[in-house]
């Protein structure tokens, strides 16, 4: 823009200069021509030819007069005198006049003039003398006259030649001037032609430009009029100067009605008017623009009928002919805003629904597991009774199915926990070698059964301890190795660890390779999805909820790593896990990993499990491995004794009823032999939690009893090697089963547990209000019974057994139409139970959160 303007200025300047030059030349030449003309006009040239010829004429007159007198033709001497005077005067003119200055410089003329003047000087005294004297001298005068006859002729001839020459010269000069004038005139004409051309071009350009401007302004007007967005332009005082068709439609004003009016008055909602007016005032005072040029903004505008609606707006400022103008583009976004609101509502509902579903799933799984544990425990008790062969087989099938069901439920719990965000990773210093060794050890028996060999090794230097969660890492690897074992027959399974270490960080890759049946290429990506269970799917880890690899993927992601697989169908598969890990600080490296639990810190233990039931053994082993312990397994008492003789264990867990040698007998042998485990704590793992049995175990040298089904808290307490409690049976009739509350907390995660507990508590308080309020007896007893029933169910989830029992009694009373007083007593009991239960549960659930 500036450059363009600069160019224009330069061009205009050039044209002006050319024009000025042309005018100057024209003026100069005009002046010159006038001067020359003047010169010609005023040429100080009398009729010189006449004058020169007159010299000769007057000489002849004088001569004639003289001769006439001598011969007597005239008798007046004054005639001679007058003719002399005239001739004298003529010569005087030639001698003095400025006109003849140049001529006098001609030698021939000068010489002739001098001769004539010489005659005159001689003649004057004669002419001026008296008549007689003059008469006497006339003859001499006549002779003297003869002497100048030739000079007089020469004088006039020289003069004529001179003036002819002068005239020629002057003509030449005039011709030159005219030629010069012609050239200059041509030049001026050329210049004028050029200037005309330039002006013509400029004019044409201007015409084109103005046409283009006209065109673009018409186009702009069309754009403005046909824009779907409202376009409102105001001048710097806020008066509307443009209001397009869309604006008419959106605001319901007609353009003619609003042009010239204050924009604030027309389209700004009353609530925003003060702000708008203040903004305009500020702009007028300081030129500060807070809205213009700030891009899109969402505001509200007012229609002609006063209704307010949301608009998306953008304002730009531009230079108008009368100073700055503002152009606003406005779009009615009522529908969009409404749609967005609906979308947000729908999303909130969906999120809430999803959360409710997830909570439901968590609670259901938990609820299913609790009775299932009871079922499995009872089954294992049943197994220890005397059974026929077919009964034993049925029980075995029941046991397998039950264990599978339990494992499925655990999977579902893991998934929901992850989805609920309850899966927290607590990195502790961990020896990767130990984790992998435990996993491999745990799978060795299964591998043997399938005819597989299993081994692991580091590729390159082993890493020192790293920061990770061993329990979760173990869970991932058990999954992968378990899959490999399951899908490989008579093959080889290799676990390789690779570390790419840089400083205090390392990227660890764990490869689980097998040469089993492999996976179809199309299934590999799908395998890590939930419930991706094809008939022969690898994803069916742990006998196939289809969640195994999905859980592994979630756990790897939670640990910040990646998981993947490569496979060739029929040749084998390689699963890999890549984890970015930090090295453990040196001072922590001698302390081995332990699971992050509320219980006292338990160092990893070397545990010997003696258990004939394979499934029980695996469950227990997994539990221990996942807590970071090292496990050695024995399938009967005799094998247990052998293992115990080979190395020292931190603790030995043994089943009681086993073929070959039972647990009590094996314990006795271990205690009596002076082997490495003579004083190792030995615990019975049994459902025979009867006092008499416990006594027998103590006599055999056992340190305590772990009741089946084993829960983690109990196992941890045992592994902590604290003084073990006497075996605990389910204490019916107690007020709160804190174990259940704690299990719920662990299973669904603190957040979900807190949410559920919050609901439960408000429901409880609400129903108690109902029961204790005076209007109760008028309320529909069936409705209250329903409420009590529902709340009793919830109470059971949290282990609030006393409270639940009271509620059920009230429910029964209401439904059977018991006397009012009896129900009243129940209500009092329930209230008391709640008053005692609530602090206990709050402490467990909320402080655990």
């Amino acid at each position, binding site marked *: 823009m500036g450059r363009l303007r600069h160019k224009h200025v330069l061009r205009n300047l050039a044209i002006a200069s050319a024009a000025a030059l042309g005018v100057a030349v024209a003026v100069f030449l005009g002046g010159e021509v006038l001067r020359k003309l003047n010169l010609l006009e*005023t040429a100080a040239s009398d009729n010189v030819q006449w004058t020169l010829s007159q010299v000769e004429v007057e000489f002849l007159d004088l001569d004639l007069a003289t001769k006439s007198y001598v011969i007597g033709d005239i008798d007046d001497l004054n005639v001679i005198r*007058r003719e002399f005077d*005239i001739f*004298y005067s003529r010569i005087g*003119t030639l001698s003095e006049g400025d*006109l003849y200055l140049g001529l006098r410089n001609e030698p021939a003329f000068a010489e002739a003039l001098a001769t004539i003047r010489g005659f005159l000087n001689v003649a004057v005294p004669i002419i001026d003398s008296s008549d007689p004297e003059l008469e006497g001298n006339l003859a001499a005068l006549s002779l003297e006259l003869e002497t100048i006859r030739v000079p007089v002729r020469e004088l006039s001839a020289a003069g004529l030649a001179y003036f002819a020459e002068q005239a020629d010269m002057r003509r030449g000069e005039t011709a030159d001037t005219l030629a010069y004038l012609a050239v200059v005139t041509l030049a001026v004409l050329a210049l004028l032609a050029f200037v005309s051309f330039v002006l013509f071009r400029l004019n044409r350009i201007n015409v084109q430009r103005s046409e283009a401007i006209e065109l673009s302004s018409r186009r702009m007007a069309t754009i403005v009029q046909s824009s779907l967005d409202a376009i409102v332009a105001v001048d710097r005082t806020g008066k509307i100067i443009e209001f397009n068709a869309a604006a008419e439609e959106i605001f319901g004003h007609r353009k003619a009605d609003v042009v010239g009016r204050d924009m604030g008055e027309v389209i700004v909602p009353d609530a925003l008017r003060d702000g708008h007016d203040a903004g305009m005032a500020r702009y007028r005072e300081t030129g500060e623009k807070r809205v213009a040029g700030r891009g899109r903004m969402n505001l509200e505008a007012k229609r002609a009928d006063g209704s307010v609606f949301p608009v998306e707006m953008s304002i730009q400022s531009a230079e108008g002919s009368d100073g700055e103008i503002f152009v606003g583009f406005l779009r009615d976004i009522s529908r969009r805003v409404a749609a967005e609101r609906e979308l947000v509502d729908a999303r909130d509902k969906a999120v809430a629904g999803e959360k409710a579903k997830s909570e439901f799933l968590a609670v259901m799984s938990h609820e299913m597991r609790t009775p299932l544990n009871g079922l499995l425990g009872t089954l294992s008790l049943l197994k220890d009774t005397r059974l026929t062969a077919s009964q034993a087989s049925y029980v075995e099938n029941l046991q397998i199915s039950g264990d599978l069901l339990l494992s499925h439920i655990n999977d579902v719990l893991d998934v929901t926990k992850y989805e609920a965000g309850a899966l927290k990773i607590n990195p502790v210093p961990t020896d990767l070698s130990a984790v992998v060794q435990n996993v491999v050890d745990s799978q060795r028996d299964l591998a043997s059964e399938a005819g597989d060999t299993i081994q692991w090794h580091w590729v390159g230097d082993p890493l020192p301890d790293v920061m990770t969660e061993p329990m979760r890492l173990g869970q991932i690897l058990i999954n992968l190795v378990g899959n490999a074992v399951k899908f490989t027959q008579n093959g080889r399974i290799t676990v390789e660890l690779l570390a790419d270490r840089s400083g205090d960080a390392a990227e660890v890759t764990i490869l689980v390779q097998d040469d089993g049946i492999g996976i179809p290429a199309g299934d590999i990506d799908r395998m890590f999805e939930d419930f991706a269970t094809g008939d022969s799917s690898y994803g069916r880890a742990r006998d196939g909820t289809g969640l195994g690899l999905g859980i592994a993927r979630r756990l790897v992601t939670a640990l910040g790593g990646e998981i993947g697989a490569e496979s060739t169908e029929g040749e084998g598969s390689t699963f890999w896990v890549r984890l970015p890990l930090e090295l453990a600080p040196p001072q922590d490296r001698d302390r081995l990993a332990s699971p992050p639990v509320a219980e006292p810190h338990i160092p990893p233990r070397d545990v010997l499990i003696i258990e004939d039931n394979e499934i029980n053994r695996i469950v227990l082993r997994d539990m221990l491995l996942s807590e970071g312990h090292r496990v050695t397994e024995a399938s009967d008492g005799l094998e247990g004794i052998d293992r115990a003789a080979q190395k020292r264990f931190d603790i030995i867990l043994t089943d009681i009823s086993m073929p070959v040698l039972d647990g009590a007998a094996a314990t006795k042998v271990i205690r009596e032999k002076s082997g490495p485990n003579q004083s190792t704590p030995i615990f019975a793992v049994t459902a025979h939690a009867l006092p008499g049995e416990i006594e027998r175990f103590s006599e055999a040298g056992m340190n305590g009893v772990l009741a089946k089904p084993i829960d983690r808290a109990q196992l941890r307490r045992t592994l902590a090697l604290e003084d073990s409690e006497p075996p605990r049976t389910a204490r019916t009739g107690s007020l709160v089963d804190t174990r259940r509350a704690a299990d719920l907390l662990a299973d669904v995660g603190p957040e979900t547990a807190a949410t559920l507990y919050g609901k439960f508590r408000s429901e409880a308080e609400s129903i108690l209000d109902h029961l204790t309020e005076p209007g109760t007896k008028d309320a529909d007893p069936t409705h209250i019974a329903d409420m009590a029933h529902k709340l009793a169910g919830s109470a059971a989830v949290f282990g609030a057994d006393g409270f639940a029992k009271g509620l059920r009694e009230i429910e029964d009373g209401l439904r059977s139409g018991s006397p009012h007083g009896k129900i009243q007593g129940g209500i009092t009991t329930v209230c008391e139970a709640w008053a005692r239960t609530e602090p206990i549960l709050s402490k467990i659930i909320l402080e655990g959160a």
Partner: protein
Amino acid sequence: MTTTHGTLGGKLALAAWLFVHPIAAGADSLEMPTGDVVLSVTGNIAAMNDGDAAVFDEAMLRALGETSFETTTIWTEGVQTFTGVSLKDLLDELGVEAGTLEARALNDYAVEIPVSDAVEGGPIVAYARNGKSMSIRDKGPLWIVYPFDSNDAYASETIYSRSIWQLDRIDVQN
């Protein structure tokens, strides 16, 4: 340039006379010359003193008024002071208002001068140059001189040709 006219009374008298006798004739309207006649005017004139001619000696011309100016001429050297009666005064005296003057010189030079040349500040019939009467040798006794230096319009050949010296006769023609 200084101009001295005749007495106001004389002029008024002349004007009155002209008013009463528009086409007056008779020698009694002009004095008779007492010295040598230097100029004779003939033709369409209102005042005469010698038959149908008006003749003047130098004294009569001097009595008609004296006008002087300085100028250079192409025929002389240096600035000259010319003194004489302005042509306008002369023609007024003779009652000439229009027409052409045919002026003749002693050397038989003749030239036509339009009466319109006779204006205030215009040509004079000079009888003195540089304070002295002019002899014939000195382009006298009378010389019609235009104030060349004070008016560029007079610097033309036509005007130069009208600058007649050794003037002795004027014939006024219609």
